[in-house]
């Protein structure tokens, strides 16, 4: 069944493939990503670094690194194909429909421009009619992010902001565009613990106040579990399991999801474990299951047949020969 506008999804990725041509040969960070995001919902994606999380977000915005291209699959926004948008349509889609919050908050801001200039420019690019001065909107945008004295912050430059402040400015920037989907690329990774919690709370609160959807990626399962109602587990450029948070956190079906859960399940006195084996190299295109070399449940069929896609209903999906009901 093709998930399209018929089921009311805001964003649908089906079988998205990305290839980057580098000096040392092609790299395939995405090898068939399937994902849906519905209006107003929060979705999380978890996986080790290099599994294609960030690239998934970039493919949604069609922002490819040098030498990179979306080489297969479809990205659909409501009933439109994002891959077929022309330059003007793409410019409108970016920001107004989907906006992104970046991992490193300080480098995501132009060091030579004031906070005010950056927010005002984002406003102007995305709102055709402003009833009022854009500076007033910028001040309001900062106030929403709990800045006590927005006027002082507006006059500042990125290097004068702490990491937590810079990330709140980035969130304000993304929200200023008025998108119905926010992409968050590990937005709290560089921040200290207390700031992380604060920034996440603010992000959640602002996203739900605007009825926007949130697609949140992180290597930190706990951060994702805090924010997301539905969670996808990514491995080697594919979403290998997807389902509601409770299901994924308590009884995941995919062996990799289980292993990942074991890693973070820090009961008193236990040391965190790692998953044996090597992270897959993305220079290869995986015809069969990419996890089978590290998998405790490996069977003969894993080496013979491509991964089956089990659609289990209720947003649950699984890519594994074991099927949903193994012990």
């Amino acid at each position: 069944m093709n998930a399209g506008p018929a089921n009311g999804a805001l964003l649908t990725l089906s079988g998205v493939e990305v290839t980057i041509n580098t000096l040392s040969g092609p790299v395939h960070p995405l090898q068939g990503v399937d994902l849906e995001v519905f209006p107003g919902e929060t979705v999380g994606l978890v996986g080790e670094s290099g599994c294609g999380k960030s690239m998934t977000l970039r493919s949604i915005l069609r922002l490819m690194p040098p030498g990179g291209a979306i080489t297969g699959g479809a990205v659909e926004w409501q009933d439109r194909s994002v891959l077929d948008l022309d330059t003007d349509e793409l410019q409108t889609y970016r920001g107004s429909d989907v906006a992104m919050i970046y991992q490193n908050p300080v480098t995501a801001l132009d060091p030579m421009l004031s906070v005010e200039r950056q927010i005002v420019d984002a406003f102007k690019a995305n709102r055709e009619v402003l009833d009022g001065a854009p500076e007033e909107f910028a001040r309001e945008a900062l106030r929403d992010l709990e800045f006590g004295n927005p006027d002082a912050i507006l006059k500042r430059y990125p290097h004068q902001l702490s990491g937590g402040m810079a990330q709140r400015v980035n969130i304000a920037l993304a929200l200023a565009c008025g998108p119905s989907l926010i992409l968050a690329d590990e937005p709290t990774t560089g921040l200290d613990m207390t700031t992380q919690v604060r920034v996440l709370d603010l992000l959640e609160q602002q996203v739900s106040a605007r009825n926007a959807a949130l697609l949140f990626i992180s290597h930190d399962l706990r951060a994702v579990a805090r924010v997301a109602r539905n969670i996808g587990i990514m491995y080697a450029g594919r979403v290998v399991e997807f389902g509601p948070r409770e299901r994924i956190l308590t009884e995941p079906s995919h062996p990799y999801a289980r292993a990942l859960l074991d890693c973070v399940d820090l009961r008193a006195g236990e040391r965190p474990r790692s998953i044996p084996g090597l992270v897959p190299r993305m220079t290869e295109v995986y015809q069969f299951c990419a996890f089978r070399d590290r998998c405790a449940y490996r069977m003969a069929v894993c080496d013979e047949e491509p991964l089956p896609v089990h659609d289990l209903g209720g947003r649950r999906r699984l890519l594994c020969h074991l099927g949903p009901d193994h012990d």
Partner: protein
Amino acid sequence: MVILAVVLLAVVMIGFTITRSTGTPLYASLGVAVSEAIIEQRAEEMGLNEPIVVQFWTYLTHLLQGDLGVSRISRIPVAEDIALKLPATAEMVFFTLMVSFIWAIPLGVRAGLRPGGRLAKLGEGMAQFGVSVPAFWLGLLFIFLLYFLPPRLPEPLGPLPALFPPPLGRLGGVDPPAMVTGFYTVDALIAGDFRLAWEALWHLILPAVTLSLTSGPPLFRVTRTAVSEAMASPFVEAAYSYGLGRRTVLIRDVLRNASPPVLNLAAMTFGYLIGGGVLVEVVFSWPGIGSYAVWGMDNSDYDVVLAVVIIAAVIYVILYFIVDLIQFAMDPRLRD
């Protein structure tokens, strides 16, 4: 500011020491067929018998009053000569930079935006050529190809004689315009004489193109690197992700962030060419301060050589100061 003064003082000291340790100017100014007594008298006149520290002090105090000394050969005050020759060099260097801004920077921007593209390859080719070829040779080649290689017509007409003399010097046997800025092109325009302005420009083109081809490659490369670094920075991707257009991102983010190193190098190139364009000045008979310094060296004329060194240093220092001011105005990180 204090640092700038210290730099200049150091230049004067080093320059003074070096020029004074390269032999005596006495024979050069008087010839060798003179008696010891005359030599001795001249040395006394010129203060050469004083201890070197006293000589330096004398020089420095005169320098601070704007007195650069007198040429021992022509007996013309050095400051007067420099007032004539510095504008000539400055005009040539200025047009050289203009020519570089026309090719090296646009091609550098393009090469940074689209590495491997056709224009990027053109720029890389020109840069490779420019660094591989000596400027004086390129200048001679231009003169030869354009003015001495007569166009050949089919027999029996044979080769035609070269139609035009090469544009050597600043003007072809015409009186210069009334001195205002010392730039003949500008002065001619001020005087309202367009023919003369064109004549001056015509004489500038070849030396400027020659110098630009050989001094422009670093500008091309730095521009390319700065632009491609800016393009790869997260804030540029973020700007795109907020739905800003290509042109906006290019001007607002990419060019702004790429400009400091390019600006720096342009100032350095200007300073370098003030003294470093000597060979091209000689090839094109350009009456500039480089040729003047060479003439001074040939004649052991201390004050001429030292004055050129000091003037070049002053220009460097002033340029750096201006560039610092511009960058200070542009980059908020420098203001804190």
